[in-house]
């Protein structure tokens, strides 16, 4: 009997997920608890169990470190003894303090989280997609870049949608392609510090380049002093021969001074006008763009702007690197109900994550992730629907409505019925389906939960078990569209 078969199928799947939460697959339970940094989606490197966070390419950072260490090392070894003797011991002390400050701020800039925005959870992403589709009402091709406009302080700012992170970027945030993260108040990606410079480490970066300018000028000045003083006694060439290190230091400092001091000056200007490097380069707030173009974030006062950037409150990291990855609290109704649920457990999320690239390839068609075979049949009829195959993988995931209709009415479901019954050779499941309307899947929400309401007119509210688990028939049914998804979801 069909019912029996499907029941059996369903039970098979249930057994595999019965361990704890409904949709948690066994393999998940066996893996030890990992920390979140280990599963971080961006291209960052983590050290010291997630305490240190850097960009992927760190070669130039090590160069910076070596340059600073070597130059300062040489200074303290070869020039300081002379200077301490001839002039005052305060020089090495001051130099030492500056050096430590430079090192501290450099490491702080390089190792801290610049203000990475964690990517949206699958539920959020689906919710946003739904809202966008409702707003756009488009089908078929990938819609144009999604933007939202918001008025800040009288200035219209466009918020862009990030396809990687699946969020609308807050104002001033930008996606760093090198680190593959959205960063708040993104300034720039600095290879010299081996990290992005954003909201959380901008002040350290500024302190770093400022103190490095002072250090460079300091070393440059005192090495020259050393050579001059030496050459009074021994002659210029002898002085040079006696401390060749000084020559090296002068050369390094000479070339650094221009770039570092220039950079400090540039960033001082940026801070005083409360702009990011990104905005300055693009000329976002330049008066050349328009008469009424001004920076909505600036307080108008240089002093206030500086205080805001350097002494303002430091927000904590949003990505919780050292927390443990936990399967989400049970967020899905057990499959028995056959409800299209608006949430996903962790395993679901991983599937969703896997499936989403495909989603985007399929021109951001909404994914109806319900077990209901009905939805499967809708595929040939509605180009906008894509379905996950095997139940275990993509069942109660994030339903998104077909873009054409805000909510599938029962009428449509009825349309699907005959086809469905025919192809699946399953009439029972359809009848079993129902049950849903008794659950409070919000009907106001234009989403496929609405679809399942259609189950009820079909008659009885039986468990969906019957309809749910029939991977074979589902595969054959919408093979074309879910080929990729099936591969991904066949766990």
């Amino acid at each position: 009997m069909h019912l029996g078969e499907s029941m059996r199928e369903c039970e098979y799947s249930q057994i595999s997920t019965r361990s704890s939460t409904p949709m948690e697959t066994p393999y998940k339970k066996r893996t030890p608890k990992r920390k979140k940094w280990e599963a971080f989606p961006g291209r960052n490197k983590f050290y010291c169990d997630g305490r240190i966070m850097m960009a992927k390419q760190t070669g130039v950072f090590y160069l910076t470190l070596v340059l600073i260490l070597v130059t300062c090392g040489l200074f303290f070894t070869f020039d300081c003894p002379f200077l301490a003797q001839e002039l005052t011991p305060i020089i090495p002390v001051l130099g030492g303090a500056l050096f430590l400050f430079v090192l501290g701020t450099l490491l702080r800039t390089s190792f801290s989280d610049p203000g990475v925005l964690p990517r949206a959870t699958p539920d959020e992403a689906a919710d946003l997609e739904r809202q966008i589709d409702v707003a756009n009402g488009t089908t078929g091709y990938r819609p144009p870049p999604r933007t939202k406009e918001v008025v800040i302080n009288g200035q219209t700012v466009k918020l862009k949608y990030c396809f990687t992170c699946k969020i609308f970027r807050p104002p001033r945030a930008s996606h760093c392609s090198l680190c593959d993260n959205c960063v708040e108040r993104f300034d720039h990606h600095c290879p010299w510090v081996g990290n992005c410079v954003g909201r959380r480490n901008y002040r350290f970066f500024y302190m770093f380049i400022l103190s490095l300018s002072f250090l460079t000028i300091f070393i440059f000045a005192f090495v020259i002093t050393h050579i001059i003083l030496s050459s009074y006694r021994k002659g210029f060439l002898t002085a040079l021969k006696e401390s060749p290190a000084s020559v090296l230091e002068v050369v390094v400092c000479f070339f650094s001074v221009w770039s570092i001091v220039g950079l400090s000056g540039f960033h001082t200007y940026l801070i005083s006008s409360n702009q990011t490097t990104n905005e300055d380069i693009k000329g976002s707030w330049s008066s050349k763009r328009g008469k009424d173009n001004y920076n909505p974030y600036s307080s108008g006062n240089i002093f206030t702007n500086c205080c805001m950037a350097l002494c303002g409150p430091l927000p904590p990291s949003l990505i919780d690197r050292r927390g443990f990855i936990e399967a989400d609290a049970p967020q899905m109704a057990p499959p028995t109900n056959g409800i299209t649920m608006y949430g996903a457990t962790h395993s679901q999320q991983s599937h969703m994550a896997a499936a989403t690239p495909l989603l985007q390839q399929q021109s951001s068609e909404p994914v109806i992730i319900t077990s209901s075979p009905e939805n499967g049949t809708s595929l040939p009829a509605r180009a906008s629907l894509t379905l996950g195959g095997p139940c275990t993988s993509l069942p109660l995931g994030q339903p998104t409505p077909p873009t054409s209709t805000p909510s599938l009415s029962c009428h449509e479901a009825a349309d699907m019925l005959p086809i469905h019954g025919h192809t699946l050779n399953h009439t029972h499941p359809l009848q079993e389906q129902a049950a849903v309307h008794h659950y409070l899947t919000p009907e106001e929400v234009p989403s496929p939960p609405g679809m399942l309401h259609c189950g009820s007119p079909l008659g009885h509210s039986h468990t969906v078990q019957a309809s749910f688990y029939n991977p074979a028939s589902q595969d054959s049914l919408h093979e074309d569209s879910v080929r990729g998804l099936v591969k991904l979801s066949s766990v």
Partner: protein
Amino acid sequence: MRLQDLQQPAVSSKVFIQRDYSSGTICKFQTKFPSELESRMDKQQFEETMQTLNNLYAEAEKLGGKSYLEGCLACLTAYTVFLCMETHYEKVLKKIARYIKDQNEKIYAPRGLLLTDPLERGLRVVEITIFEDRSIGSGR
């Protein structure tokens, strides 16, 4: 009989309250009452919760004498002071977490709702989970 009976209430849906950027980059959430909650709770109560949350976040990010002092002190001590002290922001975030827990216990849980701390969502959204109302029956 049903597996679900052995488990916690199932999630019916989730509502996401997005950020409100009209005041700039400060952390502020929209206070518009979502239609999905209409059947579950008072508009006023919801707005009060959101307003309080917004006020708390504003307090965390406030620029004033205290935060400047903290910033300067931190700079002078090369930020080592934070090894023993919490930042003002972190203190307020803890306050927010307590507030949300309190709200959940008093107002939201009795109505089958659950507020998720936005910090767990990267301060992007306030996630409200709507649990199915079992009192209506399973319809079996």
